[in-house]
């Protein structure tokens, strides 16, 4: 990050302080953080992903309601259906977030990624946090409504 001097004015008075997460990837403003990432797909994974998507979307509010810390979450297929790109805004630190989604929405995430994302086991597998961490890309800029 640059260290050039900030010119203080009436607009900088409203500035949001952006930091990195204290315990993992992603940017952070106040209580909220962001992560984005790319999962590689197994051959035929995109077709399976699309087949499962309606049920996954229909159950989103239920499972995210259990987690209770996610502001928004989106996914799309990238590069001729060879990858999934996802991005999420959530409350709190990175590691507790991973624990939360594994414990409270594990079956939902397994239902979309298992057999689709190359290398994904199940959310509760002990190697999954490291696997997810390997595929995350931190943002370079973040804005959140205060």
């Amino acid at each position, binding site marked *: 990050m640059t260290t050039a001097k900030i010119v203080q004015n009436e607009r*900088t008075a409203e500035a949001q302080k*952006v930091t990195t997460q204290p315990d993992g990837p992603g940017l952070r403003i106040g209580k909220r953080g*962001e992560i*984005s990432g790319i999962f590689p797909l197994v051959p035929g994974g995109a077709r399976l992903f699309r087949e499962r998507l309606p049920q996954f979307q229909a159950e989103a509010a239920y499972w995210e309601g259990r987690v209770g810390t996610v*502001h928004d979450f*989106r*996914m799309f297929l990238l590069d001729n259906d060879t990858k999934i790109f996802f991005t999420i805004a959530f409350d709190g630190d990175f590691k507790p977030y991973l624990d939360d989604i594994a414990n409270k929405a594990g079956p939902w995430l397994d239902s979309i990624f298992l057999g689709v994302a190359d290398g994904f086991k199940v959310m509760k597998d002990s190697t999954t946090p490291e696997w997810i961490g390997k595929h995350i890309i*931190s943002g370079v*800029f973040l*804005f959140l409504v205060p």
Partner: protein
Amino acid sequence: MSNPQAGVRPGLKAGRSNEFTLILPLKPGGAERMRKKMGDTYKAQDQSDTDRIGTIHDMRFVIFDNDTRLFFASTFDGDWDAYINDFGTIIPDVIDFQFGECEGYPGIHSPNIKDYIVKHQVTATHFYSAYPNASVRDVWKALKIKGGIDVVLDEATA
């Protein structure tokens, strides 16, 4: 501005919330220049300027693919065209500054800007919003009310 898909714009909608996602090619060396632009110095002023639009819940930039591509994601209230028009009328310099490292970016005031955006916009296959029917202004109002109640409660228990 041209309107390549009048009435049919990319992106998913949940309640009043819309997802807006772009994948853009970066100019050679653009990733590094962008990281410098978007350091602490730039963020401070830019975020308060963005706040003036009043319909953006969040937005983020992610550089990926060995610094060759840019991912931009935002969640906004209302209409796609109004959202783009707000960028052009309220924060044109910010937008040109932010997207100036993208290949082919014509500038927010270009008559081709909406064609450029539509060409690079990716409609999500899954979109979840925690409060799809609460606008940014609803959230601000709720926070003000909560702040007032907190003050009353704090005074009552002091």
